[in-house]
C-alpha cells in the first residue's frame, strides 16, 4: 500500500475499462453563482431519505418547529433523522409522493413556513478535534448527514468503519451530463469543503487524501488546490473526463488501479470515498452546528429559462424550483430527477427535493429524445465494450428478459452499477439498464420471499411441536389426577361410604323403574301413568313417576310411534296439574325421539346421549319453576325431540315432516291452557317455525346432518336462557328462534338454486329491529309484532346478538351447501 501511495503521490493515474463520452451540456448551468431561493409555500419532508430505516417521528400535527429542529429521532442502527428546513407549523404527517422512481407515496412530514425562518439553538464545535470519535460520529448522525452523491448512505456508518483506512478519496468528479452542483459548490465554498474533509481525516486517520475532480472543471480544481495549499496529506488530482468516472468503484480504479471485489465494499481495500457535498455538509454540521437542511441542486434543461444551481431546502417541491427558474413546459413535459444517464422521470412535480437530489432536469425532446421503439439485439457487442464493470451486457439482457435469473447471476448481474453506458451505445435502443433493474428487483423479492417462507416453516414446525406437547401434558395431567383420586379414595373411608350410598341410591331407582313397568301392562296410555305419579306428593315419587313415564313411553313408541303421537293430542285436556302434564309430554317426546332414532339411524348412541342430557337438564330446571314455565319448556323439548327424530328417521320422507309440523301445531293448542296467552303465543310461533324449518330443510336438502347440528345448538341455547327467565325474555327468545329458523330453512331450500341473494335479503331483514316476516309465514305476523312491542331494550340487544349469530350460521351453511 505504501508503494501505491507513493505512486499516487507521484501523479500516476490508471484507467477503468469501457466508458462513454456523452455530450456534457454543463455550460447551461455553470455560469451563474448558486442562488438563494425564497421560502416555498410548503415543505414536504420524507421521513426516510437514506439507505436504511426511517427514524421515529417526534413531532405532531399542529406543532410549531424552528429551522433545524429534528423532526425524527434515531433509535436503531441505519437510521437518520430529518430536520425542519425552516421555522413553521407541521400541517400534516401523511404519505406523499416521494423522490423515488416508483412515484409511490411514502410517509412525509408537511411543514408550512411562518416566513420568520428562525433557527433553533445551534451547537457549533469549531474545535471538534477535542471530541472523541464516538461524539463526533453522533454529531454527524444527529445532523442527518448521508452521502450526497446519490446513494444517500448514512455518513456516520461509513465513517465508523472498523477496518484501517489508508486512503480517503473525495469524489468531485460529477461525471453525469448537465449536473454542475458539485462544481459550483467547489468554486464557491472550497475552504469549507476542505474543513469538512479535515473532519473526515480526523475520524479515519488515512495516510493520504485524494480529491479527484474531472479535468473539465478547471475553476473548481483551482479553487480546491488553493484551499489545500500547505496540507501535505491532501492531493488534488484532475482525472480524465469519461463517463462513469464518478462511480465509486470506477474512481477507485482510476486513482489506485485496484478493483473493488465483487459484492465487497471499498473499505475492504482500505479505501473510503466521500462526496464533495458530504464534506461540506459535515463542515456545516460540526463546525457551524447546522444540520443537513439544504443542498445545492442544479435546475437545468431546455425547458427552464435560467438554468442555474440553487440552494434548495430539503422538502422543496420540484414545481417551486422550476417556477423560480422560469419553467416553460413543452407539449409533453418531461422532468427528470438526477442526471440523464441514471436519473428517473418524475411522476409529479409535487415531488420534494430529498437529500440525494442533485439535479432537476427538464430537457427538450430534441436534446433528450423520448424512448423510441426497442429493436432486437443484433449482438454487435458495443455494450460489452462500453461496460465499465467488464460485464457482458447482452448476455445479462438475454437472461434477464427470459427471467433466467440464476444464469443472469452467473454473469454477475449484481456487479452492474446501472450506469447506463450500455444502453447509451446500443444501436437497437434496448433499455438494457431497465431489464437489469427489473431482474435485480425480482431476485431480491424472491430472496425475501424465500426468507419469509423459511420463517413460516419454522413457525409452523414450532406450532406443531407445541400442540403435540400440550396434548401430551394434558394426558399426563389427567392420568395424574385419576391416580390421585384413586389414592384419596383408598385413604378416605368416608368417601367410600359415600360411593356405596350412591350406588345404593341408583339401585333403588332401578327398582322403582321396574314396578311401574308392570303397572304399565294394565294401563295403556302414558297420561294415566303420569296421573298416577302426580297422585303421590313427594319429590322422590315424582322422579319415579318420570322414570315410569319414560319407560312406558319408550315401549309404546317402539311399538308404534305414530299412535303415540295421536294419544298425546287427545290426552292433555283433563284437569291434571300442569306440572305433571308438562313432564309427561316431555318424557313422551324424548322417548319418541329415542325410538325413532333407533329405528331410523345406524348410530343410535348419539340421540340417546342427547336424551339423557335433556333429562338431567329437566331435573335442574324444573325445580322451583312455575308450572307455566315448565309447560313451555316441555313443549319446546317436545318439538326439539320431534325434529331430531325426524332428521334421523330419514331425509327422503317429506310427507312425514309435514305431519310433524301439523302435529306440533295441534300440540301447542293443547298445551296453551294454564299459560299466559302471550307466552304461549310466542312459544307456539317459535315451535311452529322450528318445525317448518325442519320440514323445509328436509325437502330442500339431501344432507340432514346440518339441521341436526343446528338443532343441537338451539337446544343448548334454550338450556342457557330458559332457566329462570322472565316471560318477556322467553318471548324474545322465541322471536329470535323464529328468525333463525326461517333463515335456516330458506338457506337450505334455496341452496339448490341461488342461496346468496336470498341470504342477503334475510340479513337485511334481521338487521332492522322490526322484522317483516316472509309471506310464507304470514300467519305469524301478528303475534310477532305484539311480542316485539313488549320488548325492553336489553332484550332487543339480546335478540340482535342472536340474530347475528344466526346470520353467520346461515351464511356458513349456505356456503357449505354451495
Amino acid at each position, binding site marked *: 500500500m505504501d508503494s501505491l501511495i507513493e505512486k499516487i503521490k507521484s501523479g500516476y493515474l490508471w484507467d477503468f475499462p469501457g466508458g462513454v463520452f456523452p455530450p456534457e451540456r454543463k455550460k447551461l448551468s455553470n455560469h451563474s453563482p448558486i442562488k438563494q431561493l425564497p421560502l416555498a409555500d410548503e415543505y414536504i419532508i420524507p421521513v426516510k431519505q437514506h439507505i436504511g430505516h426511517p427514524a421515529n417521528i417526534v413531532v405532531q400535527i399542529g406543532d410549531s418547529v424552528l429551522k433545524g429542529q429534528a423532526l425524527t429521532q434515531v433509535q436503531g442502527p441505519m437510521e437518520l433523522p430529518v430536520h425542519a428546513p425552516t421555522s413553521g407549523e407541521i400541517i400534516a404527517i401523511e404519505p406523499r409522493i416521494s423522490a423515488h422512481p416508483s412515484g409511490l407515496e411514502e410517509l412525509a412530514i408537511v411543514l408550512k413556513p411562518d416566513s420568520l425562518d428562525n433557527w433553533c439553538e445551534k451547537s457549533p464545535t469549531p474545535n471538534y478535534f477535542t471530541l472523541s470519535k464516538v461524539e463526533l460520529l453522533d454529531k454527524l448522525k444527529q445532523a442527518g448527514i448521508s452521502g450526497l452523491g446519490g446513494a444517500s448512505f448514512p455518513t456516520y456508518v461509513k465513517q465508523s468503519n472498523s477496518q484501517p483506512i489508508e486512503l480517503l478519496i473525495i469524489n468531485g468528479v460529477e461525471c453525469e451530463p448537465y449536473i454542475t452542483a458539485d462544481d459550483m459548490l467547489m468554486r464557491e465554498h472550497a475552504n469549507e469543503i476542505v474543513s469538512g474533509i479535515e473532519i473526515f481525516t480526523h475520524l479515519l486517520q488515512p495516510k493520504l487524501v485524494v480529491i479527484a475532480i474531472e479535468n473539465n472543471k478547471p475553476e473548481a480544481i483551482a479553487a480546491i488546490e488553493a484551499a489545500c495549499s500547505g496540507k501535505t496529506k491532501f492531493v488534488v488530482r484532475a482525472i480524465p473526463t469519461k463517463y462513469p468516472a464518478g462511480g465509486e468503484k470506477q474512481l477507485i480504479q482510476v486513482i489506485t488501479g485496484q478493483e473493488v471485489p465483487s459484492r465487497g465494499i471499498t473499505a475492504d481495500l482500505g479505501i473510503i470515498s466521500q462526496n464533495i457535498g458530504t464534506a461540506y455538509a459535515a463542515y456545516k454540521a460540526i463546525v457551524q452546528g447546522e444540520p443537513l437542511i439544504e443542498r445545492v441542486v442544479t435546475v437545468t434543461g431546455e425547458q427552464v429559462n435560467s438554468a442555474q444551481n440553487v440552494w434548495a431546502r430539503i422538502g422543496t417541491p420540484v414545481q417551486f424550483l422550476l417556477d423560480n427558474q422560469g419553467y416553460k413546459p413543452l407539449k409533453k413535459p418531461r422532468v427528470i430527477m438526477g442526471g*440523464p444517464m441514471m436519473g*428517473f422521470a418524475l411522476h409529479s412535480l409535487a415531488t420534494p427535493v430529498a437529500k440525494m437530489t442533485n439535479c432537476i432536469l427538464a430537457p427538450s425532446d430534441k436534446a433528450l429524445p423520448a*424512448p423510441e421503439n426497442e429493436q432486437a439485439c443484433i449482438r454487435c457487442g458495443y455494450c460489452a465494450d462500453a461496460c465499465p464493470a467488464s460485464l457482458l451486457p447482452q448476455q445479462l439482457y438475454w437472461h434477464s428478459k427470459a427471467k433466467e435469473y440464476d444464469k443472469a447471476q452467473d454473469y454477475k448481474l449484481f456487479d452492474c452499477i446501472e450506469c447506463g453506458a450500455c444502453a*447509451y451505445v446500443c444501436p437497437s435502443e434496448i433499455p438494457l439498464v431497465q431489464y437489469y433493474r427489473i431482474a435485480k428487483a425480482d431476485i431480491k423479492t424472491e430472496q425475501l420471499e424465500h426468507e419469509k417462507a423459511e420463517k413460516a416453516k419454522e413457525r409452523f414446525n414450532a406450532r406443531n411441536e407445541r400442540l403435540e406437547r400440550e396434548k401430551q401434558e394434558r394426558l399426563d395431567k389427567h392420568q395424574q389426577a385419576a391416580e390421585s383420586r384413586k389414592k384419596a379414595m383408598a385413604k378416605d373411608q368416608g368417601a367410600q361410604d359415600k360411593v356405596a350410598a350412591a350406588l345404593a341410591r341408583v339401585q333403588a331407582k332401578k327398582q322403582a323403574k321396574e314396578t311401574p313397568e308392570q303397572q304399565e301392562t294394565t294401563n295403556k296410555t302414558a297420561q294415566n301413568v303420569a296421573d298416577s305419579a302426580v297422585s303421590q306428593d313427594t319429590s322422590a315419587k315424582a322422579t319415579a313417576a318420570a322414570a315410569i313415564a319414560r319407560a312406558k313411553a319408550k315401549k309404546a313408541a317402539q311399538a308404534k310411534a305414530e299412535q303415540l303421537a295421536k294419544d298425546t293430542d287427545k290426552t292433555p285436556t283433563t284437569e291434571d296439574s300442569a306440572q305433571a302434564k308438562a313432564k309427561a309430554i316431555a318424557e313422551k317426546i324424548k322417548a319418541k325421539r329415542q325410538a325413532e332414532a333407533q329405528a331410523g339411524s345406524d348410530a343410535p348412541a348419539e340421540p340417546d346421549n342427547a336424551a339423557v342430557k335433556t333429562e338431567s337438564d329437566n331435573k335442574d330446571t324444573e325445580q322451583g319453576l312455575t308450572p307455566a314455565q315448565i309447560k313451555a319448556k316441555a313443549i319446546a323439548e317436545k318439538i326439539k325431540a320431534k325434529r331430531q327424530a325426524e332428521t334421523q328417521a330419514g331425509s327422503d320422507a317429506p310427507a312425514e315432516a309435514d305431519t310433524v309440523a301439523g302435529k306440533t301445531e295441534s300440540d301447542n293448542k293443547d298445551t296453551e291452557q294454564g299459560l299466559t296467552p302471550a307466552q304461549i303465543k310466542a312459544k307456539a310461533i317459535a315451535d311452529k317455525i322450528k318445525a317448518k324449518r325442519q320440514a323445509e330443510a328436509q325437502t330442500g336438502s339431501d344432507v340432514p346432518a346440518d339441521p341436526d347440528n343446528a338443532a343441537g345448538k338451539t337446544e343448548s341455547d334454550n338450556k342457557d336462557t330458559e332457566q329462570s327467565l322472565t316471560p318477556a325474555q322467553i318471548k324474545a327468545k322465541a322471536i329470535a328462534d323464529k328468525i333463525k329458523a326461517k333463515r335456516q330453512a330458506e338457506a337450505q331450500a334455496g341452496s339448490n338454486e341461488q342461496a346468496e341473494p336470498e341470504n342477503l335479503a334475510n340479513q337485511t331483514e334481521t338487521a332492522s329491529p322490526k322484522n317483516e316476516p316472509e309471506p310464507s309465514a304470514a300467519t305469524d305476523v301478528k303475534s310477532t309484532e305484539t311480542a316485539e312491542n313488549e320488548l325492553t331494550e336489553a332484550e332487543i340487544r339480546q335478540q340482535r346478538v342472536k340474530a347475528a*349469530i344466526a346470520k353467520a350460521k346461515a351464511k356458513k351453511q349456505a356456503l357449505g351447501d354451495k
Partner: protein
Amino acid sequence: MILLYSLLALGIIALIFGAILGYANIRFKVESDPLVDQIDEILPQTQCGQCGYPGCKPYAEAIANGDDINKCPPGGDATIKKLADLTGKEVKPLAGTEGEVAEPVKKVAYIREAECIGCTKCIQACPVDAIVGAAKHMHTVITDECTGCDLCVEPCPVDCIDMIPVATKPENWRWQLNAIPVKQL
C-alpha cells in the same frame, strides 16, 4: 493354480471395497429423503392446505411419492415450473384451472378489530401462530408473519377477517420498463 490365485485376489478386492462401501453407508447416512427437502424448499410455505395436505411438508412428501406437482395455488406457475425441473415431470397448469392463470397476489389477513368478539377461533386456525389475542379480547394479525393462507377467514363467526393484498412500497416495487425514459441523450 492361477485360477485359484485370481479368485483369491478378486475376493480380497471385493471384500475391501465392500468394507469401504459399508463404512460409507454408515458414515454418510442420509437422514431424510433429500428429494422431499428439496421440494419443500421450493414450496411457498404458506401452510394453507389448499393442496389437500396439512401443510407444505406433507405435500412435498406426496410429490416425492408421485403426486401431481400442480396443486399449489399460492406458488403459482413459478413453483410448478421449478417443481417440474426438479422432479423431471411435465409442467401442467394449476389444478382446477384451464391454462394460464394470473400470478398469485400476495395477501395478508386483516382483522377488523372493532368487530372482533374475541372467540380465539382464528388463533387456533393459524398454522404459523401469526394471530395474537386472548379470549374475549380483540385479536390482531402480525402481518410480517402472516403467510396469507386464508385459513383464519372460514372459522371467524362474525366474518371480521379480510384478506388484503400487500401494498406496493418503494422497497418492494418492481421497475417497469416503460416508467422511465430510456433513450439517454
